[in-house]
């Protein structure tokens, strides 16, 4: 789906009326809330898009959810600002598979949320008060890896035992994806070859990352997802995966740490 995110001057949404499964809504919110508490949601005929960067401008999320992912979806386009943790709490009230009805009240600037008899009226946030959305950097990253969500989880968990930093790399010669974590006394090294990976496009890559961020992103990556990871040499990492049966997509981007040590 083409990005319809504009550079600014986007009008505040007037009409939005949609029904979506609780699972899809929760997955959407969780993917963004690992980085920010508040975000702008862009509404458009084709679906919704959220782009946000954490307060330190280190980790970014770019999410789209197509209109087809909803049971019903109507909007005249525009923008709303939401408190994600609040909305997550509400969505959490629904059982898996239950439907959530979202309707914007243009007069009061509130979002009515109905879940099987439960009604919640959520005050929206002025989009202008929310941190500006980042530009999407255009990166040409040499190495591509397609990896299962559970293997990212394993890597992050292993690294966390010894360090607060994690190095991700691809050895182009041996055609390996590897993870290094150096602690004060102990080290962790993990290798995944073509057998272990879904796909590998070799290229020399090695970058060091803060485990804090990667752990947060990992929380939102489904264990059974196919994650397309793009890596470079001392460059940000991009991680892309789909959700909601391919009708939702998330791309994370995380800036590296300087490898001074």
């Amino acid at each position, binding site marked *: 789906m083409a990005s319809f995110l504009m550079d600014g001057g986007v009008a505040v949404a007037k009409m939005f009326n949609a029904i979506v499964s609780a699972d899809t809504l929760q997955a959407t919110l969780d993917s963004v809330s690992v980085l920010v508490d508040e975000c702008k949601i862009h509404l458009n005929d084709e679906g919704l898009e959220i782009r946000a960067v*954490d307060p330190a401008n280190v980790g970014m999320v770019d999410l789209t959810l197509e209109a087809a992912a909803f049971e019903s979806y109507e909007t005249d386009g525009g923008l709303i600002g939401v408190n994600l943790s609040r909305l997550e709490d509400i969505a959490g009230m629904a059982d898996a598979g239950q439907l959530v009805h979202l309707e914007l009240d243009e007069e009061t600037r509130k979002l009515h949320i109905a879940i099987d008899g439960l009604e919640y009226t959520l005050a929206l946030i002025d989009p202008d008060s929310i941190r500006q959305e980042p530009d999407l950097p255009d990166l040409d990253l040499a190495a591509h890896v397609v990896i299962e969500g559970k293997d990212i989880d394993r890597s992050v968990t292993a690294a966390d035992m010894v360090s607060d930093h994690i190095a991700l790399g691809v050895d182009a010669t041996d055609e390996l994806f590897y993870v290094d974590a150096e602690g004060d006394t102990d080290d962790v090294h993990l290798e995944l070859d073509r057998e272990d990976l879904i796909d590998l496009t070799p290229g020399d890559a090695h970058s060091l990352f803060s485990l804090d961020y990667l752990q947060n992103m990992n929380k939102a990556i489904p264990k059974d997802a196919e994650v397309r990871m793009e890596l470079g040499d001392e460059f940000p990492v991009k991680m892309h995966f789909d959700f909601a049966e391919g009708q939702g997509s998330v791309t994370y981007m995380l800036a590296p740490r300087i490898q001074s040590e």
Partner: protein
Amino acid sequence: MEFAEFAATAAEIEGESADIATIELVAGLLADAGDDLPICTRLVQGRVFPAYEATKLDIGPKLCYEALARAAGRNVAVDDIEARVADVGEIGAVATELDLGGQQGLAAFGAGSQSPLTVAEVADELAAIASASGSGSRGTKVETLFGLFNRASDAEARYLARIVLSEMRIGVGEGTVRDAIAAAFDAPVDAVERALQVTNDYGNVARVARDEGADGLADLELTIGRPVKAMLAQAGTVTEALEDWETAAVEWKYDGARVQVHDDGETVRLFSRNMEDVTEPLPEVVSAVEDAVDGPAILDGEVVAVDGDGDPLPFQEVLRRFRRKHDVARASETVGVRLHAFDCLHADGRDLLDAPLVDRQDALDAVLGDADAVRSTFWLADDTERIEDIADEALAAGHEGIMLKDPDSTYSPGKRGKHWRKRKPDVETLDLVVTGAQWGEGRRATYLGTFELSARTDDGYAPVGNVATGITDEQLATLTELLEPHVTRETGQRVEIEPAVVFEVGYEEIQTSSTYDSGYALRFPRFVEVRSDKAVADGDTLERVERLAARQG
């Protein structure tokens, strides 16, 4: 202004010990600040928000260490930073040695522009931290702070960390900034001082001084809804007050909490002495003011906690009410509060800070009409007895003592001066007769010390304590010379002295005691002076000691 420039100046200021040179450096900073002038006047004092604003940065050390740990090099934990701070003793120095900035931002790869930290950005980000609330906000605060530290150089991190923890400590106080504003923009210090008093806003005063000069400063006025500092009192005595002023304004001194009342004619807001908004916890005061005050007005007063019978309760009860955010209705059932308004800073569209106290009292009467419910007591008195009567009444009514004020004095916000004096019973001294002493030890063996003090009784003298402190070696020599001729008996070190000399003695409190025959003992007695003007027959009686003891409640 780039934050690096601010940090460089802060470092210069920190290294400068001379006051005048410090003022010059701060003045230079302010002169160069441009649009960032208001922020710079605050940051240089280690403040992010104007003093009158209720907003607090409220970042605890733990949160700050967490952000620093994340911005630091590999495997630096919160505990490591805590340990370093314990070693080094201050966060600024620790922040400079952490090798911050290892994390690159996405901006370096084309997501947004990459620019040096500015003072405006620092202030904005810290404001964002202060306003973050709700679930998940702690994480946002850490990340935002981490983002700032991550972009800071070592020199910047030093002052950023200190600002974050409100520990600037570069020797710049409010007076320094006042003088620096005057120096930077060629404005009279008095005009700056006055403008600061009425607005309580260093940033705005600096801006007005620069852009509008002395005239602009003179135009600044009190704003209803924006608290100013309270005028303060020092300890004093009735005698001195009457000596200085002939006639003294006398008020009961309430054992409560200071409250400033701002009534714009429609809404009443209440502020505590540290300018916190305490409107919500004190609904009875708000409604009492709504009933009584013919606004707009700014009043100064004391809020006292009262029990079901309307009798005053200790000060702590008021504080408990201040802190109570929930269940105010229930709290006000058990502990009531009552306002005693005793001054009027603004009435009828007119600022009254420069008006004499007696005129402000008239204004207070006019504003309150005949609503005695919230008005403090007020008398003008020119003789000691009358004032002592008022004091006795105050104590009998369960209050703390009396306030003595210069009837002609103006209202000086934030000043603790001689125009207002508080007299609590413990400020009273006793004139007691010396009836015994002990020879000293070692170096002081040839001096009499530890003097036994007695109050007069119907048929003689009753000891109420021994005084040994507050006396210098020279005084000991003089006192020995004075008292030795009156020694009647010596038993070892102990001597008995015939009543001849009167000491004026201060003390913390009078306790009932079985140690002395009088039944009373002075707690922490201290020597003030020899009352050579007083004969022993003029010494204080045991009856007075009893009365003072009873007043302490």
